[in-house]
């Protein structure tokens, strides 16, 4: 197991071998160390790292490998670890932390019968939903469903045809400017002024708000591995996206609106990005997140609005949406004709020569047991497409 740690010195490596039989399931965790030690706070020590661990048969946690790399150097060597652990496991369960304790949560966004129709686009029809404070709210739907139109109407790039909406209790048309003071927006396609350097763009962006936090800019840029002194035109798509992320987060907004945020980011960067979002939500930031990738939404969101052809199909919690554990399975048999079989949990079946395509929501072990006795050449288990999930979900 190798891990690339591009930047930062590896401060401490720790690994332990386990016999094969012990491994039940592998976990990867990202570690954060915020020192509360009198020694270290003076130097503002900030560390992160990656931890690989698994649970053995006896239920104990075994650390396979731990890599720590610091993002700033230490002045003294004799600091005792661990200082203050904060392990975050990048799985659906742990990222979905509990809502803030106590009290009634405020509605950050309240949309009532919002309709926007314009020339070429289908627009959105009669949307009604609300997003509560501290929530991560997903917008999910196929391309062209109206996700971006909704977001653009909320930000007043577009004027609503009818209906209304408020953000922070303020009208999205009349008080748009005040709303935007506390909103961070990441467009799906980031476009910045090509002639500017990253740092100049970020300063320009910060100039519109009443605050500019240089330290935060540097910290974000460092975590995202973004070179502040490059010109925008020399950046790749992914790097431009990073600039977009930094400019959206820099002024510490109360509401983050992210339109397909992960496009163009490599998996490691996506994880860093999700980490940052997790920290934001812990601070109480509300996040709206649009995507057409189900697993991404599953990982991050509390609730999702499913939007299709401009209409809101339903607002649903993630738990309910993915309860059925739907998988897309393709089985290729050794012989020219697929062997037909039936199992509980098969939602849809399609046979095409030696290939059999299943939409399956049952126990995966049952299926594997069934296949065990069959002449299977190849097996492909995939996340179902959104369409398939929706169709399945709403047929029930």
């Amino acid at each position, binding site marked *: 197991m190798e891990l690339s740690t591009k930047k930062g010195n590896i401060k401490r490596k720790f690994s332990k071998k386990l016999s094969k039989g012990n491994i039940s399931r592998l976990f990867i965790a990202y570690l954060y160390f915020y020192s509360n030690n009198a020694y270290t706070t003076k130097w503002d020590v900030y560390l992160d790292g990656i931890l690989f661990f698994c649970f053995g048969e006896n239920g104990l946690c075994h650390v396979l490998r731990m890599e720590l790399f610091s993002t700033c150097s230490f002045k003294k060597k004799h600091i005792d670890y661990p200082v203050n652990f904060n392990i975050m496991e990048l799985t659906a369960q742990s990222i979905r932390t509990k809502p803030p304790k106590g009290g009634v949560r405020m509605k950050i966004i309240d949309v009532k019968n919002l309709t926007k129709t314009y020339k070429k686009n289908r627009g959105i029809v009669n949307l009604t939903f609300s997003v509560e404070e501290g929530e991560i709210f997903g917008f999910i739907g196929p391309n062209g469903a109206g996700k971006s139109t909704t977001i653009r109407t909320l930000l007043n790039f577009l004027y609503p045809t009818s209906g209304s909406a408020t953000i922070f209790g303020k009208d999205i048309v009349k008080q748009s400017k005040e709303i935007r003071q506390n909103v961070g*927006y990441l467009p799906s396609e980031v476009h910045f002024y090509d002639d500017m350097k990253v740092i100049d763009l970020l300063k320009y962006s910060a100039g519109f708000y009443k605050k500019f936090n240089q330290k935060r800019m540097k910290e974000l840029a460092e975590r995202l591995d973004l070179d502040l002194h490059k010109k925008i035109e020399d950046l790749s798509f992914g790097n431009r996206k990073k600039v977009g992320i930094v*400019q959206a987060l820099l002024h510490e907004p109360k509401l983050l609106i992210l339109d397909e945020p992960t496009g163009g980011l490599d998996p490691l960067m996506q994880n860093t990005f999700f980490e940052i979002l997790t920290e934001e939500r812990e601070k109480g930031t509300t996040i709206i997140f649009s995507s057409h990738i189900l697993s991404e939404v599953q990982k991050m969101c509390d609730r999702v609005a499913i939007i299709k052809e401009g209409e809101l199909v339903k607002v649903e919690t993630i738990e309910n949406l993915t309860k059925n554990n739907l998988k897309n399975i393709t089985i290729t048999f050794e012989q020219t004709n697929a062997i037909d079989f039936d199992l509980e949990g098969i939602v849809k079946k399609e046979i095409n020569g030696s290939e059999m395509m299943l939409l399956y929501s049952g126990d995966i072990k049952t299926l594997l047991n069934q296949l065990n006795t069959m002449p299977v050449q190849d097996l492909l288990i995939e996340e179902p497409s959104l369409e398939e999930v929706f169709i399945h979900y709403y047929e029930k």
Partner: protein
Amino acid sequence: MIFKRELKRNLKSLIIWSVVLSGLILLTLSIYPQFAEQQNEMNKLLESYPEPIKKVFGMNELNLGELMGFYGVEIYMMTTLLGSIYSAILASNILAKEENEKTIEFLLSKPVGRSRIVTEKLLSVFVNILILNGVSTITSIIGFQFADDPDVPTDTFTLLAVATILLHLTFGAIAFMLSSMLKKTRSIMSVSLGIVLAAYFMNVMAGISEDLEVLKYFSPFKYVDAAQIINDNKLEPLYMFIMAAVIFISVITSYMVYRKKDIAV
């Protein structure tokens, strides 16, 4: 913020235009001494020009042997026409570029009102036009020193400078209005340059043929005719009013359109 950014962004093109225009002015003025010396022969040569041509360039009413007359015929044509082209290009780009290059999503997501975007961009257009005019005026004054008698009547020269600025602002404002309405910078630029050249062409046509004289009312170039200004030593109030009105209406329309427009990239 936006104003400063726009000044910076357009600085390079302003410098290029200033250098080119200044170069042309100095080059042209540097031949004036020779011109003045050989006035008689020159005048004879010019006499042989067809009447319409002389009329178009104001040669029939202005004396090329005098510095002011030379300026009115040779230099003024360059500053008015080239400056108008510059103004049209500059203003066509300024609002629509953000939409065309999709940077408007960035700008609009900041806490800034649409009116402020329009105001700062408009201001930057006007300041750029003023700077270009300042440069060409100063260069002309420097160029006048080539002449044996470099003195020109200050009031007439000032009137010409004011007329030029007003003309540039008129074309700038029209192009700016187009920029607020349309999205494709290239088509806006074609239209606004088309307007400038059509106006210039109408002015020429009005000079060539008596029948087409009615065209002059449609051409701002006619409003700032050098011969008229130099000979009457005043600006025609009606023309100035028309230009001011065009500027005013274009600017108001820009605000109205841009504030209410759906901006989707």
